[in-house]
């Protein structure tokens, strides 16, 4: 955020509820985790933001809060799908890509392809998971400060996973991965799909660049798995100016703060990808994918950026079909 607006983690701590001043800084933070990375003073800034937001009112939620409403609605209803305990010990959770596809139909991204591709890739890797059809993981709701709704979702989902009898939960979304690993107590192994994809034996022979989603990278420390999944399958990886721990944010997290400042961040990131001179920008988070493609579908940007933004699983599955 410092790149594009006058903001500082220090002042947002000072000004927040502790001193009863201005809480704006709490809500404009993108929770990308770059501040603690750049200034390692052992301050759990993300944890602070998360706690401060509890029970507060977000400044703005993008898309009129449609995903918030959907999650709230589903948190109050009993799920109508039951877990199947007889299935495999691996579970695959597609996340909210389906509703992303339904409500963001003007972004021109096939979100459903992430689920289809992930299953194809898992099949090739020799894993036949049962598909977990539980409610939203609650990531956005949690970061939007609605802890009560998050707790309801968490209770339901924890019960569902216990019933399903799986011991490994695979997600294809960086946010789900973070939430299930850090905010839930599942007591089972949670892995991101990129950690399973390095032995597919594909020969891609293309130059790509990789954008680290904040949830997968700085929050969870997974930097190498997606890179290995690309290089082991033959793709040549070309890093952007900022990568791994120093990766720039895609601009929006948990559907908050979609405004001109964060758009500047997005443009900065897209420009870096353009400067890398490759045809494909890979990411592993559906949200990053949506935000980049949203920017890309704008009139001026079409001329400016001549590369595709695709999800890792979709990219790999596409090359599986060619063979």
């Amino acid at each position, binding site marked *: 955020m410092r790149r594009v607006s006058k903001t500082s983690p220090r002042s947002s701590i000072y000004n927040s509820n502790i001193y009863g001043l201005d809480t704006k800084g709490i809500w404009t933070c993108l929770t990308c985790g770059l501040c603690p990375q750049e200034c390692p003073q052992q301050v759990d800034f993300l944890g602070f933001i998360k706690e401060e937001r509890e029970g507060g009112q977000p400044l703005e939620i993008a898309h009129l809060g449609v995903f918030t409403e959907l999650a709230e609605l589903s948190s*109050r209803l009993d799920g109508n799908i039951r877990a199947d305990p007889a299935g495999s010990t691996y579970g695959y959770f597609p996340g909210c890509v*389906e509703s992303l596809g339904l409500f963001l139909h003007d972004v021109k991204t096939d979100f459903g392809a992430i689920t289809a591709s992930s299953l194809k890739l898992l099949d090739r890797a020799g894993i036949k998971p049962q598909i977990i059809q539980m409610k939203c993981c609650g990531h956005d709701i949690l970061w939007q400060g609605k802890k*009560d709704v998050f707790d309801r979702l968490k209770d339901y989902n924890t019960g569902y996973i216990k019933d399903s009898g799986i011991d490994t939960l695979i997600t294809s979304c960086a946010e789900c991965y973070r939430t299930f690993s850090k905010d839930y107590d599942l007591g089972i192994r949670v892995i991101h799909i990129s950690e399973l994809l390095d032995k597919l034996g594909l020969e891609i022979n293309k130059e790509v660049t990789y954008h680290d989603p904040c949830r997968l990278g700085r929050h969870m420390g997974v930097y190498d798995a997606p890179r290995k999944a690309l290089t082991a399958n033959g793709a040549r990886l070309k890093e952007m100016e900022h990568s791994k721990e120093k990766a720039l944010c895609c601009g929006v997290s948990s559907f908050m703060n979609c405004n001109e400042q964060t758009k500047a961040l997005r443009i900065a990131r897209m420009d870096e990808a353009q400067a890398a001179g490759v045809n494909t920008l890979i990411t592993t988070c559906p949200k990053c994918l949506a935000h980049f493609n949203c920017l890309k579908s704008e009139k001026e940007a079409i001329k400016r950026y001549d590369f595709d933004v695709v999800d890792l699983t979709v990219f790999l599955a596409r090359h599986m079909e060619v063979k």
Partner: protein
Amino acid sequence: MTENVTEFEPDILAFCCNWCSYAGADLAGVSRFQYPPTVKILRVMCSSRVEPVFILRALKDGADGVLVAGCHIGDCHYIDGNKNAEVRINNTKKALAKLGLDKRLRLEWISASEGARFSEVIRDFTEEIKKLGQNPIKEVKIDE
């Protein structure tokens, strides 16, 4: 009043577009077509004004059914607003299907001359909602 068990009366929220369906509802009133008093009509300028979030919020706040009514395809005052509405509402329906609420959302085309059709749609939708029972969200209690 205590002796009679009152029958369940659904609460239906109807978004009617200004140019066709609202006029259709008006005509139904002027022509004295009877329809049950279960519906609350909200005028919007176009059926595509209805965001999915309006529907979700209505259901969350306890509406038993949501009706979105617009001009017939090809008759939209804004040329193709109702086509956009169709995409949106169908997508919302798919999202609601996961929660088992999809039958509580309906999209209808009612033109300004179809007062009789308006009352018929309301009667039909009310019957359907009565069969479904009340919105399950009202039954779930939340411990605050």
